[in-house]
């Protein structure tokens, strides 16, 4: 059974078909690259999986169960963490508090637990581990808005990992980063994969994609035009056409 199974998923925005019967599967401990030109529907796909948009057709199942009609907070609680293309940390909260937010859902169900203080030693210990792993330990008490972009991106990953996800959706993690920053982030993503977490990676940087991903899905104009190993994708004529245009 695949970790995530997307079947013939479609999304229409006022008649515009942003996603057209896209199918893909993702496995535990695998980084699946999702590439395609701008407007191909990559972020739309993420927004459908994480429940931000309702779908116009198709099926999404996670660990064998349909998540199609679930709300974003329910989907994240099932173990699908995500980051955003334009980073969205909680700007005025410090790094530690940002990560703590993701622990809340364990306490909400009981009213008495949800009015307990959120700074609890055992949880803070877990937060520290995550913050350390993402290389943010010296910035634990820094307010998110003061962090440079690369650290904000890591903070988003730390926050998503706090959900104890089985699947992580990363939307252009290396965009806007310097080479070294991006290399460090790639190391982090590899570590995440090695824990057995499945990763869906939207990425424009081909170097990064070819290096990290075992498999790649290519979207263009909302449709899947190719799927395969990095080598196969590189030489696929449809993919070359989508990116560079048709030879005339």
């Amino acid at each position, binding site marked *: 059974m695949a970790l995530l199974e997307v079947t013939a998923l479609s999304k229409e925005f006022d008649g515009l078909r942003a996603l057209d019967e896209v199918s893909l599967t993702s496995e535990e401990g695998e980084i699946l690259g999702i590439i395609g030109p701008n407007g191909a529907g990559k972020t739309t796909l993420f927004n459908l999986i*994480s429940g*931000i948009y309702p779908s116009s057709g198709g099926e999404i199942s996670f660990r064998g169960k349909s998540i199609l009609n679930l*709300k*974003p*907070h329910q989907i*994240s*609680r099932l173990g699908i*963490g*995500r980051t*955003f293309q334009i980073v*969205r*940390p*909680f*700007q*005025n*909260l410090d790094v530690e*508090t940002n990560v*703590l*937010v*993701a622990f*809340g*859902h364990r*306490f*909400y169900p009981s009213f008495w*637990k*949800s*009015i*307990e*203080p*959120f*700074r609890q030693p055992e949880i803070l210990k877990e937060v520290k581990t995550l913050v350390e792993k993402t290389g943010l330990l010296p910035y634990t008490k820094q307010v998110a808005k003061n962090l440079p972009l690369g650290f904000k991106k890591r903070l988003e990953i730390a*926050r*998503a990992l*706090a*959900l104890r996800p089985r699947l992580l959706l990363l939307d252009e993690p290396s965009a806007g980063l310097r080479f070294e920053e991006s290399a460090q982030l790639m190391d982090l993503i590899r570590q995440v994969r090695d824990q057995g977490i499945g990763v869906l990676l939207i990425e424009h940087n081909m170097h990064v994609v070819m290096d990290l991903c075992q498999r790649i899905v290519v979207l263009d104009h909302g449709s899947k035009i190719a799927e395969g190993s990095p080598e196969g994708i590189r030489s696929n004529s449809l993919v070359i056409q989508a990116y560079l245009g048709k030879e005339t």
Partner: protein
Amino acid sequence: MISGYLITILITVIIYAMLAHSLNIITGHAGQISLGHAAFFGIGAYTSAMLYTEAGFPFWISVPLAAVVAGMVGALLAIPCLRVRDDFLAITTMGINFVVEAIFLYIPFFGGAMGIGGINLPKWFGREMTKPEYFILILIVFFLLLLLDRQMGRSWIGLAWASIREDDQASEAMGVDVIRFKVLAFILGSAIAGLAGGFYAHFLTFIMPQNFGFGQSIVVLCMVVFGGIGTRWGPIVGAVILGILPEISRPIMEYRILIYGVLLLAMMRFQPGGLLGPESILPKTFRRYVYLLSSSE
């Protein structure tokens, strides 16, 4: 002995402080702008007044019920508010205020433009409470509410509110049930506003729809923003300063709304966090002063 005039100001100010505190839960903690908070103040005042004068309930039951009713209406009205955000939420809440005021004004059941009279201060030990006693009663209730606020602020609920205030879509992706926590903020804020309304009705002894109009909502919002939105003490400081100012000077009373408007604009320009906000000069100067004192020893 404290003069009657002074105690009247004190009671007015503490009721405003409670009202500002309740708006701060919705707008400050959970980040949901409301321009119609006086509606819930009014629902509380009218509930308590009607129960007292028409149904003969004692103060001790009518005022808690005022909080319950205002909280329930708050939950109900939160439903349309959940579908909108930012500017549209501001307009929706403003609309709610106008509708509620109009209901009080045009439905004879609520006394119409004449309002409701004959509401008295509570009785205890077989006699009517004196005003200083009434002040202390409200003070104790308010103190308990502030303790609750502190507990909430440190809790998972407070953290969920903070995350929603910062970015509700990102907090959904972190497993936060945004709708539930927004509704909770509306319920709690409306209930406390209703409680303040109950205290207000029994203090004024006579209420009219105009006491709970849009202007009143703006006055309360001014207090919250002036003092420091989202801080625990800011709205109280705002209520004390803006509540006392018109009382000590007649011209300020006459140009009250104008002065509040200018103040609000000035705050937005120079101190958007309010007097006690995180980036305000006041706490900064205070900290520097304390630092200088401690380092000179």
